[in-house]
């Protein structure tokens, strides 16, 4: 991305630069061994992928008949609390500590000329987590940021390459938070790896950690 463009306030990322930034990012990832890989689609078209197992909390409703049901929009509470189920009866809610399997994909959106973060989570027995459970696994420190950030919260979307349901942070307002980063770097005559800068902002909000060593090790493409 040339420096002159920033004067025109162009924070667009083209496909080629996306590819180059990812390759530089992946190079450091392979040094750290932190699990990112490149999935090629065709030529420079592809995406970055990482899977990770983390401890998390899964909630489930136990109905009076002892059957498990996962409700989308009911608050997950502690074992002692009772909630009403839709039939007007009562049932207990319990939360269990579990290992959650997270899968993160960094794709390029040609419509928005920006990267997009897709992710999905499942329990170890393969059950996909509901939106509610994903929300509950966002660190409390990041919940505010997730609610107020320049993205229209988490929504379930079809993965454009795999066709399966993922959660996504909408990219249409990426420019709002990437612009200050790019402008500051420009004024300090530094070049920035767009993907690293972007992922450092959106990643932690959904539980994706970017170790500090990336900031010094990863360069920007020419």
């Amino acid at each position, binding site marked *: 991305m040339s420096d002159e463009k920033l004067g025109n306030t162009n924070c667009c990322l083209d496909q080629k630069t996306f590819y180059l930034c990812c390759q530089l990012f992946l190079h450091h990832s392979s040094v750290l061994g932190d699990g990112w890989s490149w999935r090629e689609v065709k030529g420079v078209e592809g995406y970055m992928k990482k899977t990770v197992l983390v401890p998390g909390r899964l909630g489930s409703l136990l109905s009076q008949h002892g059957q498990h049901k996962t409700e989308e929009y009911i608050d997950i509470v502690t074992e002692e609390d009772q909630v009403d189920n839709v039939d007007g009866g009562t049932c207990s809610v319990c939360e269990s500590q579990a290992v959650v399997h997270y899968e993160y994909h960094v794709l390029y959106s040609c*419509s928005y000329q920006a990267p997009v973060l897709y992710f999905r989570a499942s329990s170890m027995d393969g059950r996909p987590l509901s939106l509610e459970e994903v929300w509950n696994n966002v660190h409390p420190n990041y919940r505010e940021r997730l609610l107020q950030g320049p993205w229209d919260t988490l929504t379930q979307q079809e993965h454009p390459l*795999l066709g399966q349901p993922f959660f996504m942070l909408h990219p*249409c307002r990426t420019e709002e938070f990437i612009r200050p980063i790019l402008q500051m770097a420009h004024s300090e005559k530094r070049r920035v790896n767009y993907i690293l800068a972007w992922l450092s902002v959106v990643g932690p909000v959904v539980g994706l950690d970017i170790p500090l060593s990336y900031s010094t090790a990863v360069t920007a493409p020419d």
Partner: protein
Amino acid sequence: MADDKDVLRDVWFGRIPTCFTLYPDEVTEREAEPFYLLLPRVSYLTLVTDKVKKHFLKVVKAEDVEEVWFEYEGTPLKWHYPIGVLFDLHASNTALPWSVTVHFKDFPERDLLHCPSSSVIEAHFMSSIKEADALKHKGQVIHDMQKKDHKQLWMGLQNDKFDQFWAMNRKLMEYPTEEGGFRYVPFRIYQTLSERPFIQRLFRPVSAEGQALTLGDLLKEVFPAAMCQDDEPKRYQVLVHGIEPLLETPIQWLSEHLSHPDNFLHISVVPAASD
């Protein structure tokens, strides 16, 4: 010669006669009669099937009811695709009515998005419109519209109000005369036998030399396999709203007149009907 505006109406009012049957394994208190309905091509399954749900909920036990989902010949139907696209893609060369199976249990979590309310459909619809405008006008037109204008687009679709919808949508179909067309054409090409759900690329409707590009030019660029050689029998049909537009049709014209209400040109490539 048909007026271009007539095309807009024909597209909006396109219908698919559909027969809904309950999945046989779902236990009912009495026999479940099939339910017949004309589905709008341009709408979404979960938006127009309240009557279908009501009909089958009469015979299904309350405790057996979870989120409704639809399936055709074993394939879960993606409610977030326009109905006409689902039909063209999966059942275009089959006999009408379209036979769709209704399920109230065992929601296929790995295949389908959840649809807990109509506001999810609205969010999805508006998201498509915004993305289309990002491609056509860098998002400027949708950005300049007020919230009530956005609402009018959605209400127009939800309530099947052509005039209400197009009063707003015509703004999304404008472009600077000197450009000759949109910045990029919002389109998606679907194919059943591909892991990839659709093909979407940046494509300008006007060449660098100022020539209006056609449907054929688009296919040559992004999906050359769909074009057959002159001496070969036709392998594929390229369908938009159930018809095969001539490959010479300017893509700008197609985008303005044959897009869905979500402002995308949805193109289904299916195997040519064998005699």
